[in-house]
């Protein structure tokens, strides 16, 4: 009798399904939270809702056809994804990219980083509970950037603009003025976000000290991008293994100290300012005219047998392309190393022991793109 009564009044852990259709899962991510009252005791993530087999598909496509699929693996920063892919092909085929094309690629990638981070700030702001305002701020600036991308590449998200060897076609004639115009507006957007969040007591109280991950754990989990830099690990492919012309520009690798949600937010915000600095330097150093493709390009690109693991710094972290060729005009094996997949692994470590509301913020702070996680 006593035990029965005890069981009747025992509290039970509640399993809460967050996702795949939940307002704050940033796509089709599902996690089951085991909560005791409001405290998260366990997190079980489920991914794969957006798995399309891009790797397998690319094995049947020649190198040019694969570009479109790479766009779709990382739809918020498609230039960065394309870049990784075409550079992997160039490494294998031994193509020399004209200097001007490299500068243009670099500008576009940094602009894409800006647009991706604006998206993060907007979505993260909504996660913290501001009614829509950050989202519109983010989209306002992103729209300016996307308009520019559309003028150059013709598409707003899936650019298909980088090609092995260079670029598909040249940029528009008023490219430099337009970029200057856009980064000016982006600077205003960063200022708005800074004013809205950085000092706001409620935001600070909500984000500081939660979602902590130590530098050792972050390295162990293979995290990358702003998520690991917030823990104080200065890991940045742009600086450590410079590609394009990153060795010729001056920028700082932004790191945090506390490894918490606020630092991940602050790192991204600061990183955007660094991106603007990089773009300004690129604009100064870039020639107005010049070739954007090597003079002799085969009609159908073939690569010698071999393999290369090409990594670049995408907005969410290290975006790697492991390309294995057996001498044909198509990849023998293509593996996309997704930054979000590795970052997402640390979710449990970061959110166990927090409140439910904090777990949502932690998920928001690692800025996942599910199409990249699932590919």
């Amino acid at each position, binding site marked *: 009798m006593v035990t029965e009564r005890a069981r009747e009044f025992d509290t039970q852990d509640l399993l809460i399904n967050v996702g795949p259709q939940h307002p704050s899962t940033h796509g089709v991510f599902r996690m089951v939270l085991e909560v005791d009252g409001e405290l998260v005791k366990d997190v079980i993530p489920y991914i794969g809702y957006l798995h399309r087999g891009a790797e397998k598909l690319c094995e049947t*496509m020649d190198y*040019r*056809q*694969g*570009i*479109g*699929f790479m766009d*779709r693996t990382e739809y918020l920063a498609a230039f960065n994804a394309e870049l990784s892919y075409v550079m992997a092909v160039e490494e294998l085929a031994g193509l020399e990219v004209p200097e001007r094309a490299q500068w243009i690629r670099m500008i576009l990638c940094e602009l894409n980083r800006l647009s991706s981070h604006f998206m993060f700030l907007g979505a993260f702001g909504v996660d913290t509970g501001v009614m829509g*305002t950050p989202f*519109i*701020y983010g989209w*306002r600036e992103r*729209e300016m950037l996307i*308009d520019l991308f*559309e*003028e*150059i*590449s*013709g*598409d707003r998200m*899936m650019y*298909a603009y980088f*090609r092995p*060897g*260079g*670029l*598909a*076609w*040249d*940029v*528009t*004639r008023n490219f430099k003025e337009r970029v200057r115009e856009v980064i000016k507006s982006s600077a205003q957007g960063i200022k*708005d976000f800074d*004013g*809205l*969040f*950085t*000092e*706001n*007591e*409620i*935001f*600070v109280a909500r984000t500081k000290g939660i979602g902590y991950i130590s530098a050792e754990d972050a390295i162990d989990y293979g995290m990358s991008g702003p998520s690991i830099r917030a823990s104080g690990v200065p890991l940045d492919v742009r600086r450590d293994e410079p590609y394009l012309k990153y060795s010729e520009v001056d920028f700082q690798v932004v790191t945090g100290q506390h490894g918490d949600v606020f630092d991940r937010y602050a790192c991204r915000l600061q990183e955007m300012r660094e991106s603007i600095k990089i773009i300004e330097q690129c604009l100064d150093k870039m020639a107005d*005219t*010049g*070739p*954007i*493709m090597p003079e002799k*390009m085969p009609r159908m690109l073939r690569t010698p047998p071999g393999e290369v693991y090409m990594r670049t710094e995408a907005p969410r972290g290290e975006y790697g392309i492991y390309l294995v060729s057996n001498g044909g005009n198509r990849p023998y094996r293509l593996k996309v190393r997704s930054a979000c997949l590795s970052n997402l692994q640390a979710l449990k470590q970061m959110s166990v022991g927090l409140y439910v509301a904090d777990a949502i913020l932690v998920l928001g702070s690692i800025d996942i793109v599910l199409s990249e996680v699932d590919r």
Partner: protein
Amino acid sequence: MKGIARSLMTTLSTFSRKPVTRDYPNVHKPLPERDRAFPLLLWDQDIDEPFCTGCHACERACPVECMTVLMKDNPNHKTVGGTSTRRKIIDKFWIDYARCMRCNICVEVCNFDAIAMNNTWTGHEMSVHDRKDLVIDLQGLLAQSRAGAIKEWVPVLGQTNE
């Protein structure tokens, strides 16, 4: 409280700015020349026939296999008393817009500049109730160019300005 006041002032400053949204179905944003909607075929106004000869180049290059091309002998060819120099001409052409991923490869591989990406709003506003209605046939693909309602931009791979 200082930070809260700062956020309130930030939102207040946007309160006084001009709205950034567009009244979409009534006001369309001007599309850039390079805008890519879906591919369509171009009409040779001089000879009054399509540029396309049905050479299958685009069909072979399409990564998503959204095109179907059939060619035929040109009934308007000079040898049979016509005005055209094209020996072969397109007979039937279908593009499944539901599958097309707008990668522009078909435009790049075309040897006759016969295909271009639609850069008008007509190409974007294509919602239908059935996927089958997104399979466009030759007449549909040519209609816009035939009516002169498109200013095509055919990019050449790696072309520079000028």
